[in-house]
């Protein structure tokens, strides 16, 4: 298999209970021949035990003991498959329990979101919620699968009605690339193989859409941002003066000789060398893990950011974020949290809840300032020192933060810089 230039595409699947999400994933894995014999055998046995006809594709995504017993998904699970065109990572997120928390987690690194709609029911409240989160997390591509087409006689009219319904409500959301596909996960129509039942549909199947989405420009290539993770100082004789700044390029492109500034100090220098592992390279771009050395001996440490001299992020100590609350205990105004942004940590307080979002109606409620589990709202955050921020819309890596409760060490919130 020659797959050397294949890209990696991460996608998340969202759906409500019984809309066939597990069946769809099972179908994708099965029809793309990603299921092994022993897995198939084990699922066939379980299907027979449960009295299902044939193989229940949904069982391929079964996970923990409790999930199998209760027939639900509790936590995000990751699935993998490869086709001759791409490698795929599916973040399979549960449809009900702690919905927002899990979907936000799965969505945070996704290139694409697959949203399922039951053709018999059309757009429901959960569809709106899923779409809102996909748009909030700025997932570059959205694929709306209208499932169970077999149960509406593969009707073009039903399909078109749902597309219109979706477009009407989603006009309030910011989404760049939305596609619609009529499918039957159960029977396989338009999942991997083209359906003979939907001659009125001309575009690609779900798999061919996933294989051809243009994802090279999903990462910001304009604004060069390099958060320093750690400083490499080898103890050996021949490298005595070596100071390599190690990190993963968050966005943009760096070249040897570039004039750079180190934030927050503002000291300026030039890139002397760039290494990718043992290999010296002339340029580096997101998301490469590299180390670089600078011409001048200046103080650089973890949490600093190396940027281009003439393209710098905002330096703020007080800023607004859209915050998703993930913990059982509600947000406490004025309480101190640890804020993590790239490799930089500070202490922070939530100064004010500006408004809470009703994720079913997209309405803003500025009277209600209580953020509890699975709530989303716009808040003002104040930090002990300045943070080097970009808007999340422009840069997912340098526009995202988490809050950690200092008394429990739990990750309690995820935020996107407005």
């Amino acid at each position, binding site marked *: *298999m020659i797959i050397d*230039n*294949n*890209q*990696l595409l991460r996608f998340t699947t969202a759906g409500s209970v019984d809309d066939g999400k597990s069946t769809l994933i099972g179908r994708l894995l099965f029809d793309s021949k990603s299921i*092994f*014999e*022993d897995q198939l055998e084990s699922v066939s046995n379980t299907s027979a035990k449960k009295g299902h006809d044939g193989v229940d594709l949904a069982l391929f995504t*079964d*996970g*923990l*003991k409790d999930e*199998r017993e209760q027939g639900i998904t*509790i*936590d*995000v*699970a*990751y*699935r*993998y498959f*490869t086709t001759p065109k791409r490698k795929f*990572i599916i973040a399979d997120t549960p449809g009900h329990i702690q919905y927002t*928390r899990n979907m*936000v*987690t799965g969505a945070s*690194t996704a290139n694409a979101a697959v949203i399922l709609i039951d053709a018999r029911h059309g757009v429901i409240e959960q569809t709106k919620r899923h779409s809102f989160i996909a748009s909030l997390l700025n997932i570059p591509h959205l694929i709306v699968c209208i499932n169970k087409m077999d149960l509406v006689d593969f009707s073009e009219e039903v399909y078109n009605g749902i597309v219109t319904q979706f477009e009407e409500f989603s006009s309030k959301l910011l989404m760049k690339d939305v596609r619609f596909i009529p499918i039957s996960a159960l029977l396989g129509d338009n999942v991997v193989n083209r359906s003979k039942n939907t001659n009125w549909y001309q575009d690609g199947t779900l798999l061919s859409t996933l294989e051809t989405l243009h*994802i*090279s*420009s999903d990462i910001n*290539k304009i604004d060069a941002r390099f958060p320093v*993770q*750690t400083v*490499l*100082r*080898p*103890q*050996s004789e021949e*490298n005595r003066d070596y100071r*390599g700044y*190690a990190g*993963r390029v968050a966005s943009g*492109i760096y070249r040897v000789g570039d004039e750079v500034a180190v934030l927050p100090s503002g000291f300026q220098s030039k890139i002397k060398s760039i290494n990718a*592992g*043992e290999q010296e390279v002339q340029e580096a*771009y997101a*998301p*490469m*893990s590299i180390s670089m050395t600078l011409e001048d001996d200046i103080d650089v440490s973890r949490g600093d950011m190396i940027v281009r001299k003439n393209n710098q992020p905002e330096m703020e100590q007080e800023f607004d974020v859209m915050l998703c609350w*993930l913990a059982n205990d509600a947000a406490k105004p004025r309480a101190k949290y*640890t804020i*993590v*942004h790239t*490799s930089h940590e500070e202490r922070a307080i939530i100064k004010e809840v500006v408004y809470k979002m009703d994720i079913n109606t997209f309405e803003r409620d500025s009277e209600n300032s209580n953020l509890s589990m699975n709530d989303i709202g716009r808040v003002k955050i104040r930090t002990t020192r300045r943070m080097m921020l970009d808007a999340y819309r422009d840069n997912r*890596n340098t526009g995202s*933060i*988490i809050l950690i409760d200092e008394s429990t*060490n*739990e*990750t309690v919130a*995820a935020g996107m810089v407005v």
Partner: protein
Amino acid sequence: MSKYYLNYLDELESEAIYILREVWAQFENPVILFSGGKDSILVTHLAKKAFYPSKIPFALMHVDTGHNFPETIQFRDDLVEKLGVKLIVGSVQESINNGRVAEEKGKNATRNALQITTLLDAIESNKVDCAIGGGRRDEEKARAKERFFSHRDDFGQWDPKNQRPELWNLLNGKHFEGEHFRAFPISNWTEMDVWNYIKRENISIPSLYFAHEREVVFRNNSWIPVSEYLKLEEGENVENKKIRFRTLGDITITGGIESDADTLGKIVQEVSAMRKTERGDRSDDKRSETAMEDRKKQGYF
């Protein structure tokens, strides 16, 4: 603009290096859990890249069941010497001698589950706050739920239903005294990715992975190597077969497959045509539907 993207192997490599560097930055005393298998060899290789030109800043920790392939131990010792890193060995035999654990009895007795106690003891006595493992999410359904940074309480236990959400690339390794973390830098790699990368980078791996002649008996649908620990059962015959191992565990439970693949290129070809999962020949996973989940909750790798 179009040339500025990574292929999937480079992206997986970059992600793993990022995680290894986060471990180094966030923990006081991390180690790499080294079994001598391809996944922990891969993690060690990635660590070398992550910290170049510095040495790997982690010790290798090996939980030695005493039931090893001699080739694995030789490979381990050679690698430790080449890299100039410290080796910590936790010995299951010692745990048995000290009365910490009791040897399993019966015909399918193994030392697999006993490793949990030895591993947790070694983590505690060496004050390790993060143990880096080569676990992959594609291996097994319980492992599919793992985080990159996976919290363990002060009993070393994993609570899969109550894990910290992991968003973007922001990893939270904060912990209290006595607790530790497991880190899984190659979570997103599949068996095929591992082999493709080993071939691309020409990483050296134990000879056991290549086809070779060996005395074996057929048991539980695979070829179990003859060793001093193997008790022949009635009706079992020792045969000489050309086999190789797809995964390496204890010599007592690791089944080989018949194969002619004696180069990395042939292994990649063979694995891509495989119709069975890698752990399908591991009797430790066959004990029950949730064998891995049960062990993992107690503190297994």
